[in-house]
């Protein structure tokens, strides 16, 4: 789960990573109060999950509350690369002596944590890596013992950070790494990490991706979701424990297993159509799950046909078919169904399906045939 800057900074502050003092605001009035409370110069920052906020005019300096409110009114509602600004982060302006870059993530190929640190912060790190690779220190960290003191120190010296404040920088890196591990993050990226005029190291930005698999250790993290504007259909699917992602096409897809569903999407595209969603009912889906999945899709007006692709393992095809038939009976489905079933109890399921086959429920023998029929019914292919 990708957090907003203000959420990341809230977590940073909680675990001891130093950040400037700040307040969240959703209105100009709140922006005024936040600036008044913080005192002095403040920065008004659009909270959107997209890069290039600054260039787009989403980050502005203000001398006091009135100016902060004025800037807030300019920024709220702004559209930054398709992201509308609903929230602001108002924070004390920092005096910047140097801008660094620091991130911790998992390097899947090396199967170790990867630290990236650079003295060239505040700019696009991929550009730094391409143009001045010597300014980017890379170091693998063994997750068994974590970031050692010598590694933090090595990162500081190799990245060419200010030597006089090397200890403080190393300590800041250790505290960022501790945040990365203790908060169960997939990514912690701070750009820029700044050296202030007083020689302090502060995280001026916070890009934090949480691992939702670890939420059982951090039950309060669920509340971060509230800040996200979620597609209502995705929210409905989540409530029903269905793995749903909205896409741009017109063929609704329901399948079991992420790989099989992705593969179905690809096949639909290959035969000239396009999927309107990714919907994985998971392992062991029965009648209820199928009804539930179909009901979710009835709320998506872009769907013109639904392709159901099930390979029964734990999942029993006969149960799935029962759910489909039941749903078709009670839900008044607005579109035709193309159904392909294989695996556990498929014979039986095919018999059930044959009995109800019509132009609204179309059986298919293979994935390919199912994709072709669905795309034809969607009027795409």
């Amino acid at each position, binding site marked *: 789960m990708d957090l907003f800057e203000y959420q990341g900074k809230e977590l940073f502050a909680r675990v001891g990573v130093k950040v400037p003092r700040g307040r969240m605001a959703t209105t100009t009035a709140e922006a005024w109060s936040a600036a008044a409370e913080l005192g002095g110069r403040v920065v008004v920052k659009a909270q959107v999950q997209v890069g290039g906020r600054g260039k787009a005019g989403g980050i502005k300096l203000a001398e006091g509350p009135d100016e902060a409110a004025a800037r807030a009114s300019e920024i709220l509602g702004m559209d930054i690369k398709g992201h509308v600004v609903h929230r602001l982060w108002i924070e004390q302006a920092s005096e910047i002596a140097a801008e660094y870059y620091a991130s911790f993530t998992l390097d899947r190929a090396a199967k170790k944590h990867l630290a990236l640190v650079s003295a060239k912060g505040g700019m696009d790190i991929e550009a730094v890596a391409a143009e001045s690779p010597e300014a980017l220190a890379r170091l693998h960290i063994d997750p068994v013992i974590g970031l050692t003191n010598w590694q933090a120190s090595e990162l500081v010296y190799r990245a060419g950070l200010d030597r006089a404040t090397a200890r403080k920088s190393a300590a800041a890196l250790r505290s960022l790494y501790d945040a990365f591990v203790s908060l169960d993050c997939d990514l912690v990226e701070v750009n820029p990490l700044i050296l202030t005029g007083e020689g302090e190291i502060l995280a001026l930005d916070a890009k934090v991706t949480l691992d939702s*698999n670890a939420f059982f250790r951090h039950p309060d993290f669920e509340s971060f979701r509230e800040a996200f504007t979620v597609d209502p259909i995705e929210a409905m699917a989540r409530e029903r424990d269905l793995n749903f992602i909205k896409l741009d096409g017109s063929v609704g897809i329901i399948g079991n297993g992420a*790989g099989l569903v992705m*593969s179905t999407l690809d096949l639909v595209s290959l035969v000239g159509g396009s999927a309107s969603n*990714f919907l994985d009912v998971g392992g062991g889906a029965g009648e209820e799950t199928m009804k539930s999945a179909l009901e979710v899709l009835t709320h998506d007006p872009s769907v013109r046909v639904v392709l159901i692709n099930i390979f029964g393992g734990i999942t029993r095809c006969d149960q799935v078919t029962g759910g489909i038939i039941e749903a078709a009976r009670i839900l008044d489905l607005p579109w035709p169904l193309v159904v392909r079933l294989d695996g556990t109890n498929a014979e039986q399921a095919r018999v059930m399906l044959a009995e109800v086959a019509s132009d609204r429920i179309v059986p298919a023998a293979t994935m390919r045939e199912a994709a072709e029929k669905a795309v034809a019914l969607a009027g795409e292919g």
Partner: protein
Amino acid sequence: MAIFVDESTRLVVQGLTGSQGRFHGFRNRAYGTNLVAGVTPGKGGTDLGGVPIFDTVSEAVEATGANTAMTFVPPAFAADGILEAAAAEGIRLIVAITEGIPAQDEARVYNYIQQTSRTPLIGPNCPGLISPGKCNVGITPGEITMAGPVGVVSRSGTLTYQAIHELTMRGLGQSTSVGIGGDPVPGTTFVDVLERFEADPETKAVVLIGEIGGSAEEEAADFIRENLSKPVIGYVAGFTAPPGKKMGHAGAIISGSSGTAAAKKEALENAGVTVVDDPTLIGEAVADRMRHLTSDV
């Protein structure tokens, strides 16, 4: 032969008394797998369907000679369970089915096992593996398989079944089908499995099922080019997946420009792999490559 599991496998299931562990553990036994023990702390000394339950893996190993552990322990306890299995002398393979283990736990456990016992770990978040006619450890439906010369390795679950189905439909049996799982840090990679298929005289061709995210397919391609003498037929899912969205698996995500299906397909093709765009063509492609193989001989 076969790889990882066969008639000599003696299986202990961690979490056999849980609903998932029980269902699949006994399904494996029904297939013919030698299920010798279950482990559930606190239930040691009891018995489930004729299988003795122990409090600890090491007791199970001492009492039953178990050599393979399958983990169905819930995510919060799974990392610890895998460490326990890895520490037990006599366990030579761990199969972790559990889905939803935190990535930090997986990274720590993977590296620690590499640094200590080096017990092979398949998964976590995987369907397990099957050597048709010999042994099934995991959730693969045994009915769709048949014994034969094709090795299957895959990051996906049901897509693997689809591939097996296509093979079986064409009379192409499987030596072993290994689901390595969809998490970012799988204990066993494509390369590890390919190495074993190469060494297994029973395996004549390999089907590799990849998906978006990471660089496992690219690493597999490098390995295939350098080390594999057997034909490989590939398939990659996720050509139409949008960047930045996790497609079900924690590992299946396109980040920036890396991890796309197109790049993976290209890498595999450059290594001599026949990559099909449609999973229903897998069987045909394998048959085709194996025909050439036979005519070569």
